[in-house]
């Protein structure tokens, strides 16, 4: 029974490997094998490889200084972080918010078995993540410091104990996420903000990692003494990998006690957790005065509502709404230095700096593509638009307007920042604003055109139109190409006519193509939408 339940749990976690949401059918055996090979390469090749590199970098100097414990403290800590955070959202959805709890509880399966299967699933996933750090760390240590019986046994016990620590943390963190999630009102915005903070932190630590490692190696003795004095427990944790039996016994015992405690609490509360409704606090309806909207206003509000309701949509198709103002602020702070540096590097291409700044803004603009999946996102709701007295071209214009609005306003801000710092004529400053704006309009029309030409309405998961549809794939690759053309052609031949004439030419091209696409959308695009 446990095996069957566990198999079902794992199949649910890896369902995207077996099932093609885009085509709404099972993948072929070859495709399933391909996805698993890809997963293996990511986990073992990339993540395992990265942590093997970190282990090699740290292990030699630290063990030579007699501080192998610090090596295990760092990598053991990293593995706990990876294991717990890597599986926290799976724990949240698999343990506390499982959709099939009602079904399983109605079947003749003991509650304890259901709980064990859920925990085993969390345990296996957490262990998989921590293994990418701890297994390379142990192997590197055994290779560098030498393998003894006590190091081998204590190393294995360290791995097993850490896997249980990860399980405990996952349960606790998953519970915290579940509680926060139930209380949140603007869940999508918080999810987007949390994702951005996480990605930002990842890149911050990624770029700082080399400095941190160098610092640790250079000041290992000083840090070591401080840790021993202030956090003896952490020191003892590091000693396990070195083969310290006392530290191993203490750690295993403490982990065992904590695990027994969590197991006891889970068995007492699992039925409550499993049968909790998970419903968000009910918002009480209070009648308020309503502001009437025009048909276009209503359609645009609908598009904004859809965009802001979906973290997936916002993160995948609207990240530049935040990045572009960020680039503007960066230009205000570091812009003059960047311009001076670019001018000296590109001395042979006079006037290249304003063109390149405009190119960068266009490249960032290309990252916003909310119009591309907007038709597909209508999905099963398409009947509403089709049955209402709405001219299809108005519905399409509302979709394009969402992208123009959420990209255009940030572009104006960033372009004004650029115009402020650029040491060029007022006309050229104006063009640095106008060209990216024209590009924004062109992109909105282009993205929507592709979206209308390649709709995907049969999706069951919104990720399919947002990330995996042909329309979005084409838009992502080609739009980057369009933006690069602006700077690239200038470098090749454009500089011969000067930056002002060059930017005017491109502005006219963008405007003309946007106008052409708008006419196409108004006529043929509207017909396609009406007949989908």
């Amino acid at each position: 029974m446990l095996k069957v339940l566990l198999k079902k749990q794992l199949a649910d976690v890896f369902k995207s490997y077996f099932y093609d949401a885009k085509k709404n059918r099972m993948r072929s055996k070859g495709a399933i094998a391909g996805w698993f090979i890809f997963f293996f390469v990511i986990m073992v090749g990339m993540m395992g490889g990265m942590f093997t590199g970190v282990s090699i970098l740290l292990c030699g100097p630290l063990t030579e200084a007699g501080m192998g414990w610090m090596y295990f403290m760092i990598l053991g800590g990293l593995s706990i972080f990876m294991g717990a955070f890597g599986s926290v959202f799976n724990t949240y959805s698999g343990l506390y918010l499982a959709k099939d709890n009602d079904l399983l509880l109605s079947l003749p399966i003991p509650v304890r078995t259901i709980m064990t299967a859920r925990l085993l699933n969390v345990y296996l996933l957490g262990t998989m993540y921590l293994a990418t750090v701890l297994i390379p760390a142990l192997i590197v240590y055994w290779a560098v410091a030498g393998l003894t019986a006590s190091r081998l046994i204590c190393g294995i016990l360290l791995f097993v104990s850490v896997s249980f620590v990860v399980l405990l943390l996952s349960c606790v963190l998953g519970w915290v996420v579940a509680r926060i999630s139930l209380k949140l009102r603007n869940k999508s915005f918080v999810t987007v903000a949390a994702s951005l903070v996480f990605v930002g932190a990842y890149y911050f630590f990624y770029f700082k990692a080399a400095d941190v490692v160098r610092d640790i190696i250079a000041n290992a003795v000083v840090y070591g003494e401080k840790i021993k004095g202030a956090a003896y427990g952490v020191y003892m944790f590091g000693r396990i990998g070195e083969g310290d039996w006392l530290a191993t016994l203490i750690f295993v015992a403490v982990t065992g006690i904590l695990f027994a405690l969590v197991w006891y609490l889970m068995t007492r509360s699992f039925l409550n957790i499993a049968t909790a409704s998970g419903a968000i606090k009910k918002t009480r309806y209070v009648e308020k005065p309503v502001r009437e909207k025009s048909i276009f206003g209503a359609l645009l509000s609908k598009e904004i509502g859809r965009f802001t309701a979906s973290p997936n949509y916002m993160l995948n198709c609207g990240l530049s709404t935040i990045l572009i103002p960020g680039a503007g602020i960066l230009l205000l702070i570091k812009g003059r230095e960047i311009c001076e540096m670019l001018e000296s590097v590109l001395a042979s291409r006079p006037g290249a700096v304003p063109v390149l700044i405009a190119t960068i803004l266009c490249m960032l603009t290309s990252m916003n593509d909310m119009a591309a999946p907007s038709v597909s996102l209508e999905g099963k709701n398409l009947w509403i638009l089709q049955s209402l007295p709405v001219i299809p071209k108005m519905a399409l214009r509302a979709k394009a307007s969402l992208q123009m609005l959420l990209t255009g306003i940030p572009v104006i801000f960033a372009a004004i920042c650029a115009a402020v710092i650029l040491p060029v004529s007022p006309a050229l400053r104006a063009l640095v604003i106008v060209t990216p704006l024209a590009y924004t309009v062109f992109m909105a029309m282009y993205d929507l055109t592709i979206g209308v030409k390649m709709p995907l309405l049969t999706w069951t998961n919104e990720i399919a139109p947002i990330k995996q549809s042909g329309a979005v794939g084409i838009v992502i690759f080609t739009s980057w190409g369009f933006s690069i053309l602006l700077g690239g052609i200038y470098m090749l031949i454009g500089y011969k006519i000067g930056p002002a004439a060059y930017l005017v030419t491109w502005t006219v091209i963008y405007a003309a193509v946007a106008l052409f696409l708008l006419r196409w959308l108004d006529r043929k695009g509207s017909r396609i939408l009406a007949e989908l």
Partner: protein
Amino acid sequence: MLKIEHLTKTYGEKKAVDDLSLHIQKGEIFGFIGHNGAGKSTTLKSAVGILKFDAGTITINGHSLLSDPVTCKQELAYIPDNPDLYDFMSGIKYLNFISDIFAIPSAERQERIRRYADMFELTADLAQPISAYSHGMKQKLAVIAAWIHSPKVIIMDEPFVGLDPKASHLLKGMMREHCDAGGAIFFSTHVLEVAEKLCDKVAIIKQGKLVKVGTMEEVKGDDSLEEVFLELEAE
């Protein structure tokens, strides 16, 4: 009010609707019955302008659905068999969205929302996201959205599915009231008892073809509608 003439729609090789003609007049509740896959939903969707058809004409109050779709849609409302509404909106936002599309003044829409939501006991849930609604609640919301702009013609595909007995009873009353006030209703159903009690006229469709149409008395005579329907199905 709703005139369907020689409607034909094919899916690949299969003729889903074959030369079907119907005329739904002012004040009529017109029932449309047939087995699964007979062509009911295809006819209803074509009449609303959701589905492009191959031949025939559909007019609503004299306006052609093909040449003047927006005017036609101004005068009709549609409730599909599965109420897939905008999950990302709350119930009240959806009703305001529909009201904005039909340019209903705010005071009027608030009065109607209050009336219908109270009637269906949905008022307390209007601020909830539609994603949190049950099937029945979505169906009630779809009914309110259909009635909110006082359409002349209401087209419904299996409107009673998912509704509780009280809501079904209310809907039947609203249908009668709507037609008594000069409107028309064209709806499909599998519940023959409901059709028998509620409809002024009924049409039976089989494999895309109209096999019987007329007033309830004309169609069923002294038999029950169920007997007539099963008899026609067996032929």
